[in-house]
């Protein structure tokens, strides 16, 4: 990233662009990455509600929300989604943590 020059700073250190952290990549922090096994997914939205990094991509256009996959720019690989995935408790995990090849 490039640093701002003093002349480019706003008074009081105000950040004028709300939510610009979205452009910041935290995906390269990962060691493990959740792999989405779509056929096991029951679209319960548990992974979505529990992700600390807003990194679960969902489709809300239809009648029921659908899980689409992982937003790799932001996912830090914590594994919370895989732990909380209900089908995993029946041995049919829809999210499986695997070591990421870099």
């Amino acid at each position, binding site marked *: 990233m490039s640093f701002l020059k003093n002349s480019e700073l706003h008074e009081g250190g105000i950040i004028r662009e*709300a939510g610009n952290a*979205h452009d910041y990549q*935290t995906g390269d*922090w990962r060691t493990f990455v959740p792999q989405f096994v779509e056929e096991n997914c029951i679209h319960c939205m*548990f992974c979505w*509600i529990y992700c600390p990094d*807003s990194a679960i991509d969902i489709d809300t256009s239809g009648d029921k929300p659908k899980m689409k996959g992982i937003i790799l720019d932001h996912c830090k690989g*914590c594994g919370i989604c895989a*732990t909380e995935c209900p089908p995993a408790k029946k041995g049919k995990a829809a999210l499986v943590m695997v070591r990421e090849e870099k």
Partner: protein
Amino acid sequence: MAVNLKQLTQHEELLTGGHRACAGCTGSNILRQIMLTAGQNTVVGGATGCMEVVTTIFPYTAWRTSFIHSAFENCAATVSGAETAYRALKKRGDLPREETGRKNFIAFGGDGGTYDIGLQSLSGAMERGHNMVYVCYDNEAYMNTGIQRSSATPLGAFTSTAPAGKVKQGKEQNRKDLTKIMVAHNIPYVAQTTPFHWKDLATKVEKALAVDGPAFLNILMPCPVGWHFDTAIGMQLAKEAVESNFWPLFEVENGVYKINQKPKERSPMENWMKQQGRFKHLFRPGNEAILENIQTYVDEQWEKLLKLEEMTAK
């Protein structure tokens, strides 16, 4: 109003990814969940601490709403000031019409910023009766500066300023019961919850925002770094904190206590503590008495809570 996940997915995501909280931090999830319910018309203020730091590392902000960075000790004062200014401007007719609708004012701080250093400004804001919600995300120590003990750190936990070794065995005092101190302010709404209990959390945020006057939410926040556990199990630890009665889900509406979840059979504290490195030393021979004290304290507190519910029932 019953909350469901389908409904929540229709709401705007107001905390973006790309913030710098540690992997597996349940704190950023708490903020995310609160904002899903609170919505865009919200002014947020954060006391210095992990959540304020990681969401607003210059020149980035993860907030898609107004956000005020406050000092460690005065977040409640800052947000109560914003709320008062808003009321005054509205009364004088100095606001454009589209800005005169209902606005939420939310202040948050960690346990260090709330139980300890910000307690005075919090108490003042609650007593003055501002229309605001104060949220404490309680990770039970000063995490951002390297895990120092706070008055929310439980008995026996290892912290950098209450270490365990040959002489001492972690913190030697029980935690302060801030939730009850807030109840003693006789404000309309006080509640405890966790991010695992998303339905409970969303309902309580809704109620806290709806009351006329101040509300206080205390939200337990498992921290993988300070509590020493695998990043994948933070939500499970929040769940088990409730099942062991260590962190009961309850609310106090106009003085009336209601326990929102009563475990059929409470799980032993040991099961919860064994999963956290901060309690590891307590399982060494010679520390049995401390473990027993911890369990006794939790059981006593639970009995008291049951009585309070009974006493205040209408």
